[in-house]
């Protein structure tokens, strides 16, 4: 998933763009493989981990380290659920807006940058340079521009995922086989036809990959924003629990976020199976 965050000096890889992009597509099915392993042993391992945690927790005070059973009990506690669920819904609204905006900006921009050699050479190093700045560091700046509330949170979510999406789309647009484009052109396809009928289908694996990478980053941004701007929604539930030394509730929020993340990945995996049926899985 982090494939892209490293290539800070991507100009070094320019010649290897082709190899790199093949790896991306392989990688996507690798991650898919990764999610569906040997389930029984995995379950066993989780059970061992939870038992170990439960046993360790019995040595400590509940405030310091609550046992997993306490955390689980939070999900059956109606009082807690009645604050958790609306908060989660509100959080997801900010997530959807920020992630949606990032997709709207990054996909067209990525295609343009990837399809034009000139623009790519001009702006790729710049993008890598800005990408190198940890997005959280922009928080004070975003507060000045967008305030402490909804707009600020959306801005952080946007900042956290837009570059990750952009980099994947650029790699995809550069990967489109020039043979296909040439064939289209020699049959007299217009620019928009080439874009619609050749480029778009060719980059669809990358679109899916960008959804996967971007959504993980955006969920990350969602909770980061709620903790770093004015505390609201899930961040608020978390901060309140922490202030009340109710560690179990704080952990329940973490578990909720983890579940949201896993659900998003599974949903995108399903989408991938559906959209990319025509694509042979390369690594399995």
């Amino acid at each position, binding site marked *: *998933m*982090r*494939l892209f*965050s*490293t*290539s*800070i*000096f991507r100009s070094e890889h320019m010649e*290897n763009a082709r190899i790199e992009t093949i*790896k991306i597509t392989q*990688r996507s099915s*690798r991650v898919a493989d*990764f999610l569906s*392993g*040997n389930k029984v*042993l*995995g*379950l066993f*391992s*989780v059970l061992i*981990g939870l038992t170990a945690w439960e046993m360790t927790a019995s040595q400590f005070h509940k*405030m*310091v*380290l609550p046992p997993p059973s306490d955390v689980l009990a939070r999900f059956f506690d109606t009082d807690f659920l009645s604050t958790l669920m609306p908060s989660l819904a509100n959080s997801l609204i900010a997530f959807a807006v920020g992630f949606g905006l990032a997709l709207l900006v990054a996909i067209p921009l990525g295609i343009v940058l990837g399809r034009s050699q000139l623009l790519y*050479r*001009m702006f*790729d*190093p*710049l993008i890598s340079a800005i990408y*190198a*700045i*940890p*997005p*959280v*560091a922009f*928080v*004070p*700046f975003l*507060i*000045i521009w967008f305030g402490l509330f909804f707009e600020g949170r959306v801005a952080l979510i946007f900042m956290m995922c837009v570059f990750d999406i952009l980099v994947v789309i650029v790699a995809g647009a550069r990967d489109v086989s020039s043979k296909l484009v040439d064939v289209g052109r020699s049959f007299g396809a217009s620019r928009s036809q080439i874009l619609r009928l050749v480029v778009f289908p060719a980059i669809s694996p990358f679109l899916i990959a960008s959804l996967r990478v971007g959504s993980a980053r955006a969920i*990350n941004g969602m*909770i*980061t924003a709620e*903790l*770093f701007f004015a505390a609201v929604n899930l961040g608020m539930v*978390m*901060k309140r629990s*922490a202030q009340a*030394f109710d*560690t179990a509730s*704080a*952990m329940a*929020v*973490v578990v909720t*976020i*983890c579940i949201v*993340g*896993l659900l*998003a*990945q599974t949903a995108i995996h399903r989408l991938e199976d559906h959209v990319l049926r025509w694509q042979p899985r390369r690594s399995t």
Partner: protein
Amino acid sequence: MTRLRRMSLPLVGFAMFLLIWEVTGQSLGNALLAPPSSVAHTYVDLLLEGAMLAELFTSLRQMMIGFLLACFIGMPIGVAMGRSRVSDAMFRPWVSMFVVTSTAALIPVLILLLGTGLALRSSVVFLAAVWYIILTTYNGAKGISPSLIATARSFSASRGQIFWKIILPAIYPYLITGARIGLVHAIRAMVMAEMFVIVGYGGLINRTGLDVDTSALLSLLLTLMIVSLLANWTLFQAGRLLAPWYEQRGS
């Protein structure tokens, strides 16, 4: 494209960016967006004053604790997962769970467990970096050509020999890449944790954010950018120097 043109195009890109920034900055004023000219001025001041770099080095030194721990623990786990089905199945659910859980969400819980000191920051950095290091090493170890291992076996190499002479050299580039990815995440996590409890470089960013003038804030971001690029570049070069026979891959 000629070599000269190829080299100069990125500069044109940067120049355009700086120009647009300068114009927007001039019209919006320093309170909203300091233009590059005033950032450059402030930057020199901050460098001469020394507090910025002092905070930065302290933070980086502390970050290394979490990062090195993540390497020492993550790399063996990654290799084990790649080479053994049982450990793969055992560790897999944990890795896939933690890799989607954002580090920011863990900070409040970790504060309750560990307080706000060095232990907190180290563990945040550790938790941010270790999963990516594991995943990269895993992909490297998983991808070793079975025929290499079969050959070694048919020449009756012992398990230890197979590990030292085949597996380790084969995953070498992945270890470096894993360290690079981990370091990027470690720097992000360091800033995040420090901004949360307002200490070190992250704390400095937070405090500077309260200033009326944004030029100091932008200077701090600039330094972070340089550090992150330099760290990445150093590891990349180290990899090339130590194992020149490999193009780095697995990123």
